[in-house]
């Protein structure tokens, strides 16, 4: 009996151990897949970094098949043979226009983000939490407007902006950006998830609508807000069509137009400039990424 029991227990233990090992293996497997994907995703960064510290000669040696159409294939090195900071120096010290355009981008970004914070967030909240006449129509309209490609809207938008005398000012890019319907849509979706009970509870506590929005809506919809604003931030950093269409004065051009300009010929420089241009959105992204996941769950659990 005891023997039997013992054996059984051992067997159990064995299967348990085997299961654990098995699970462990699977876990490692899954992890490995993830890591593989992650590496795949960041590989461009690796290109940018190595490219940035590669001399122009080395780069052209590796890449000349691509750019001049010579025989052979392009190749790359994990670590440059002759690392140099020349590109970095060139970007940082010799390219005032890079910085000028960077600050232009920051101005645009700040304008759009602030505008959305003060206008789009309440709008999304209003659409999500209140029912009123025309709400459905507005929502559908927002959806429809989201679908229009910029190329199509450009001319008409240009005419409107022209009418308001905004063309060739940063506002011509900022204002349409502020009223991007996609952000509202995204935040709206997240606000929808906020459980009605919490609001009812707050209402019972005698909170005003504004208070409720600020104290309940904002924290609970944080994920949506942050993800929408982060996306918008990214969008600002890669806007190309709008500035070209609405800005004639080159002193107003944002950084996103600088990169296409330098792309061919000065590869190392382009790499380095891209790398630096990529940092601000990346940093903000990373800073906000935790918020993306937690939001609703955290809020829901609390109550």
């Amino acid at each position, binding site marked *: 009996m005891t023997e039997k029991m013992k054996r059984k227990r051992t067997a159990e233990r064995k299967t348990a151990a085997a299961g654990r090992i098995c699970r462990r293996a699977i876990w490692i497997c899954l992890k490995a897949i993830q890591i593989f994907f992650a590496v795949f995703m960041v590989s461009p960064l690796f290109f940018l970094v190595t490219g940035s510290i590669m001399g122009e000669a080395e780069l052209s040696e590796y890449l000349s098949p691509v750019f001049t159409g010579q025989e052979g294939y392009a190749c790359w090195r994990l670590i440059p043979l002759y690392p140099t900071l020349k590109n970095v120096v060139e970007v940082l010290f010799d390219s005032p226009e890079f910085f000028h355009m960077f600050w232009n981008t920051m101005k645009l970004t700040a304008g759009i983000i602030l505008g959305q914070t003060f206008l789009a967030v309440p709008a999304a909240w209003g659409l999500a939490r209140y029912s009123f006449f025309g709400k459905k129509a507005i929502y559908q309209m927002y959806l429809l407007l989201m679908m229009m490609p910029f190329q199509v809207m450009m001319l008409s938008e240009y005419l409107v902006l022209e009418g308001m005398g905004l063309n060739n000012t940063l506002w011509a890019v900022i204002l349409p950006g502020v009223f991007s319907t996609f952000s509202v849509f995204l935040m709206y979706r997240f606000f929808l998830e906020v459980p009605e009970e919490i609001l009812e509870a707050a209402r019972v506590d005698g909170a005003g609508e504004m208070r409720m929005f600020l104290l309940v809506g904002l924290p609970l919809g944080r994920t949506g807000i942050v993800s929408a604003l982060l996306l918008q931030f990214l969008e600002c950093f890669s806007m190309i069509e709008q500035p070209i269409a609405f800005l004639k004065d080159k*002193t107003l051009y944002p950084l996103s137009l600088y990169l296409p300009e330098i792309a061919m010929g000065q590869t190392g420089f382009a790499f380095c400039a891209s790398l630096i241009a990529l940092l*601000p959105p990346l940093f903000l992204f990373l*800073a906000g990424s935790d918020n993306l996941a937690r939001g609703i769950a955290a809020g829901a659990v609390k109550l």
Partner: protein
Amino acid sequence: MNKFWAKAFVILLAVMLFFTVVSRAADSFLVAQVSVEPFTAKKIEHIVSAVASAEKGLEFPVMTEAGLLVRTVYVQEGEFVEAGTVLAEVDPEQLAETERDLRDEIRALQLQNEAAEQNQAAAREEKEKQKKRTQEDYERAQKKQEEALRRGEEELQQAEDAIDSFSAGGAEGMTQEEAETKKAELWQAYFEKKQALEDTEETMEEAVTAAARALEDASETGTADNSAEINALSIAQKEESLKAYEKLEEEGGKIMAETAGTVTGVLVQTGQKTTDTAAFTMTSTEGGARLSAEISKEDARYVEVGDAVTVEKSGTKYEDFSVTGIKQTEGGAAELTITSEEHAESFPMGESAEITVTKQSEVYNTAVPLAAVHTEQNSTYVYVAEQKSTVLGKQYFTRKVEVKILEKNSSYAALEDGVLNSENLIVTDSDTYLQAGDRVRLRQQ
């Protein structure tokens, strides 16, 4: 994590701000700095310079008396001599001898002259007498003529009166016939008298003329004898020679240069006698300086007769030269002749000097410094700095403008009008090699 990245973002912004400033500062050092100026209306100055050498000036002879024995010649051809320099010396004894001979000759001539003078005085007296006589004859003839004339006129008057009285009443008592006859007689008489008067007049005239001629003949001097005067001249001449000899003797037989100049020819030789032609030839300083220079055909285009020339010799500048001749020479070059009325002493023959002719063209509207003009194959162009708006605001960029040169000198070029306008800033100088489209910074002037 969150905070970390947020901080990183802030730091990034700060870093960006820092480099914004730094890169702007660095940028201003790296862009090509250029000097610009708009074109100006200008005369294009052509400076033709060459090395010239002094030529022979005006020559003159140094004479000395002929027939002197040259004992020593002190100068050579080409030597520059001051006034008073001894050129040569003659033999003093021979000089003294020549002098003595000369004096004797003069004495002989003087004696000859005295004799001739006495003969002449006698001849003059005789002549005077003859003249007097003829004069008297002439006066007499004249008187006679006057008398005869007076008489003739009286008779004619009487005849005339007779006719008058007859006509007035003398015919009374006479027959027609008689009266007619009488009247005819009277007229006959009148005409005879008149004829007689005319005849007398003629004969008397002849007589007077003959007398006048005789008088004329008599007043003429007899045959001229000039030998005395010739002798006198000859004496004077010889005395002058003598004086020259005496002077030469006084100076110890030395032939000296009267003015400063360069000896260009020595025509006497030691041991030979001087001739009556020049002993030496010299160029004097009086004729001024004369230089000649060879210039290229290119340069010759710009030089004209009459242009002022600056001549520079060992640091000294002479401004009062001018071009007096331009002559084509073989091989396409040209020879300039430049003269001045002074400075001969500074430019003895063969002396070389730098000359410069500065010639201004007409005024061109569009002139730019030559340094601004670039040539590539057969296109000529200038760079113009133009503002363009860039990301960083307005900045200057170069633009190539093709131009046509009308005229140029070593520092300016005149361009055809119309291609540039007065607003264009033309790049005249750059600290780096420029290409069209380069960004540049205008240099602070």
